[in-house]
C-alpha cells in the first residue's frame, strides 16, 4: 500500500522553487515571511535613511495623535513625548531590537544545543557535569545576574546579548539532552552504528535533524521572551541607553503616558507582537516543510490553491 503522495521532482525544479511553492501553500506563513522581510529591511536600511528624523525633536509635535498627516507622513503613527515621529523611531529601533534578539537567541541556541549534544552523547563525566551547569544557571535569578553583570560592564548591545544568551542556555541544553537520550536508543541510530558510522556522523546526520525542529520552535518562542527581557532591563536603566532605541525601550518609555497618549507604547508593542507572531508561524511552517512525513499537507494545500 504505497501512499500516493505527489512527489516533488526536487532536482528538476530546484530547491528555491520548491521552497517557494511550499511557502505559497501556507498563506499565513507567506504573510509572516513578508512581514519578517520588511522588519529585516528596516533593521538593515532604517538607520541609514531615517536615523536623522528619528532623533529630531519637534516640541510642537509632542504626543501628537496618530493618523494625522498634517505634520508629514512620518507622523502618521503619532509623535512621542519629545515630538519625535513614532514611525521613524520604530523603523530605526528595529536594528537594535533585532540585533539583540537574534544575537541572544542564536548564541544561546548554538551554545545550549552543542552542550546538550555533548551531554546527551557522553556516558562519562561530561554527561554529568554539563546538566549540573544548567542547574546552576537556572537556580540563579536571571534578572539579578543581568543587573550584576551590566552594573560591572558597560551596558552595550554586545553585553546585553551576552547576558541574555547565558540566561537562556539551560532551556536549549536540557531540551537537547533529553531528546538525545531518547533518540540515542532508537533503531536507526543503532543501524547507523552497525554500518560503521562515526560518532560525528551519527550526531550530525541522524540525531540533529530530528531535534532541530524542536529547537527552532523553542527559539522562536524565546525570541519574544528576549525582546521583553531586554525591555525590562532598559526599564531598570541598565539596558540600552538613550538616545539608542529598541522597541522594548519605547514601550517602557511610553508607559507613563499610557492614559493620555496610548500610541506611544501601542505601536512598538504591536511591532514586537507582529515580529514574534510571524516568526512563530514561519517556524511552524518550517517544521512541516522539513519533515518528509508531514510535507504532503502543504503539497495538497498547494495544489488546491494553485
Amino acid at each position, binding site marked *: 500500500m504505497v501512499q500516493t503522495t505527489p512527489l516533488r521532482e*526536487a532536482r528538476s525544479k530546484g530547491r528555491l522553487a520548491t521552497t517557494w511553492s511550499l511557502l505559497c501553500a501556507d498563506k499565513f506563513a507567506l504573510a509572516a515571511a513578508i512581514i519578517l522581510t520588511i522588519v529585516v529591511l528596516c533593521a538593515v536600511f532604517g538607520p541609514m535613511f531615517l536615523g536623522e528624523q528619528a532623533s529630531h525633536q519637534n516640541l510642537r509635535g509632542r504626543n501628537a495623535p496618530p493618523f494625522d498627516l498634517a505634520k508629514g507622513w512620518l507622523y502618521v503613527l503619532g509623535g512621542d513625548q519629545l515630538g519625535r515621529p513614532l514611525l521613524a523611531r520604530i523603523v530605526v529601533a528595529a536594528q537594535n531590537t533585532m540585533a539583540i534578539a537574534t544575537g541572544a537567541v542564536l548564541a544561546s541556541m548554538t551554545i545550549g544545543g552543542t552542550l546538550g549534544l555533548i551531554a546527551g552523547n557522553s556516558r562519562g563525566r561530561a554527561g554529568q557535569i554539563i546538566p549540573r551547569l544548567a542547574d546552576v544557571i537556572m537556580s540563579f535569578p536571571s534578572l539579578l545576574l543581568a543587573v550584576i553583570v551590566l552594573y560591572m560592564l558597560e551596558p552595550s548591545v554586545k553585553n546585553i546579548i551576552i547576558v541574555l544568551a547565558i540566561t537562556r542556555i539551560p532551556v536549549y541544553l536540557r531540551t537537547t539532552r533529553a531528546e538525545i537520550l531518547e533518540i540515542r536508543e532508537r533503531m536507526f541510530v543503532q*543501524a547507523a552504528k*552497525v*554500518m560503521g*558510522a562515526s560518532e560525528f556522523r551519527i550526531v550530525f*546526520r541522524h540525531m540533529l535533524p530530528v531535534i532541530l525542529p524542536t529547537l527552532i520552535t523553542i527559539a522562536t518562542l524565546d525570541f519574544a521572551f528576549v525582546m521583553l527581557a531586554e525591555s525590562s532591563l532598559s526599564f531598570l536603566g541598565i539596558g540600552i541607553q538613550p538616545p539608542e532605541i529598541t522597541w522594548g525601550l519605547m514601550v517602557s518609555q511610553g508607559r507613563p503616558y499610557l492614559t493620555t497618549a496610548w500610541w506611544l507604547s501601542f505601536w512598538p508593542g504591536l511591532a514586537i507582537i507582529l515580529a514574534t507572531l510571524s516568526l512563530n508561524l514561519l517556524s511552524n511552517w518550517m517544521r512541516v516543510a522539513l519533515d518528509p512525513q508531514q510535507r504532503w499537507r502543504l503539497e495538497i494545500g498547494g495544489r488546491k490553491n494553485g
Partner: protein
Amino acid sequence: MADHLLEVRNLSVTFHTARGPVHAVRDVNWHLDRGEVLAILGESGSGKSVSASAIMDLIDCPPGEITSGRILFDGRDLLTMSREERRHINGKRIAMIFQDPLSHLNPVYTVGWQIEETMVIHGTSRQEARQTTVDLLRKVGIPDPEASVHKYPHQFSGGQRQRLMIAMALALRPDVLIADEPTTALDVTVQAQILALLEELQRETGMGLLIITHDLGVVAEVADRVVVMNAGEIVEAGEASEVYHNPKHPYTRKLIAAAPGQGEMSSGVEEGAPLLSLRNVSKRYGTFEALKGVSFDLMPGETVAVVGESGSGKSTTAKVLLRLEEASGGSAIYKGRDLFTLSPRELYEMRRDIQMVFQDPTQSLNPRMSVYALISEAWVIHPGIVERSRWRARVAELLEQVGLLPEHMYRYPHQFSGGQRQRIAIARALALEPQIIVCDEAVSALDVSIQAQVIALLDRLQDELGISFIFIAHDLPVVRDFADRVIVMQGGRIVEQGDVRQIFEAPREPYTQALLAASLDPDPEIQAERRARRLEAAE
C-alpha cells in the same frame, strides 16, 4: 432473524482523512451465537478490528463515520441506542480484551482494585466484588490469588497480565467476549496456555467468543467458524476446517499458501572451515547473566536460526556479536581475528562484512532520509566500494534486486508499506556487500504473505551472493522453511543445536519439544491432534 446473539449487518465504516475518505469496511455481515467461537482473520489494514470497534463504540466520529448497517445484539440495534444504554451493555454483556495488556492496565492501581472497579461501576458492592475477584483470579490461573489482588500490573509477566485482562473481562459474566489479537505479543508456549484458557472459559460459561487475529494457527486452534477479510470486505466465511481445506476465494488460497512451515526443509550445507565461530560468549548486566557460555559456528553460505522465547538471550547474542554491546567474556573468531578485541579502526573495517536487519523497519530507517540517502550512506561511510558517479545506478540496481523499482529511491520510508520498508532495510545491508547478515526478528512484524515474500527474497540473495545469515526468530514455522541449522536458546543458554531436520523431526531436549508442541499449525485437523497430545501430556 433475532436468533443470533450478535449480528453485524451490512456495516460500512468510512474514515474521513486529509487524503480523502478511506472505506475501512464495506458491507460487512457476520453473526455470533451463544457458545460459539468465531474468528475474524485478516492482515493489517484489512479492517478486521473495525467491526469490533463499532460494537464497542470505540470508533471516533469524526473522523470515522458509520455510513450504513446495523449491529444487532439480542435483537436490538446497538447503533441507534443512546450512549447511556450502550454503557450498560459494554463491559457488562459484551467485554473486550486487547493485544497489549500492559497498556490497558493502569499502573498506579492494584490489579485487584481494577478488576473490582468494573463490577462496582455496574453496581456490585465493594466487598462482594473483592470476593468475586479472588475467585476469578483463581479461575484464570493466577498463582496465590489472595495475595495477587494487592499487586500492581508490573509485577506480573506478559502472559499473567493477559490472564488478568481476561479475569477483568469475565468479571460481569458477559454474553460475548471480543479478543483483539489476544496472543500476538506473547511467547508461543504462553500463547497456547492463553488460548486453552479462553476455550475452557468459553465452554464453561457458554458465552460467544469473537477472536480477531492475523494468525491461521490461532484460527485452527480455537475457532468453530472463520470470516476472512481483505481490504475492508469479507471474502470468505464458513467452518474453520472447511475454509482451510477448500478455500474458495483466491485471497484465502493465497493466505493459506503463504503460511510458513509447509516448504521443504534444508538438508544443511557442507562441513568445512567455519566463517564465524563463537566460543563461550557471555554477557552480564550487573549480577544478571544474559548470556552464559554461548558457542556456535557459522559456515559460509549457511543460515543459522536462533530461536527462543523472550528473555532467552537471542537478541543479546546479536548485539554482542555486532559490538552494539560489549561482551563480558568469550570470543568470536571471524577471519582469524577475535571480533570482541578489535580496535575501533579494525571494527570499522569489520562493519563492512557483518550487517544487520532489524525487527521494525519503521524504526530502523531514519524517517528524514530518502531511500537514496539511506542506501548511499553506506558508501559515504565506507568510501571505495562504489565510485560516486555510479551511486545512483547502484542504488537502482540494489532496489531492483530486492524487488522494488528504481524510481522508489526519491521517496521517503513512510511512503512504503511495512514489507517494502523491510526490503529497503535489506537493500541497505546489501550495499556494503557483507559476508554475514544478522536478521533480528526481521520478519516478525510483517503480515504472513509479506513474510513469505521477504523470506523468499533472503533465500534468493543467499543463492546469488553466498551470504550467510544468522536468523533470530521466535516463530518456529518460519525457521523451519529457511534455516539450515537451528539453535534453541533458553535463559541465556543454548539448550539444543542441530540441523533443521533433526530439530523439527527428532528434538532431543524437553524444552525444544515443548516449543514445537506449542507452536500452532494452520491446519485445524493437525492442530486438534496436537492439542489432544498436549492435553495427554498434561495429565
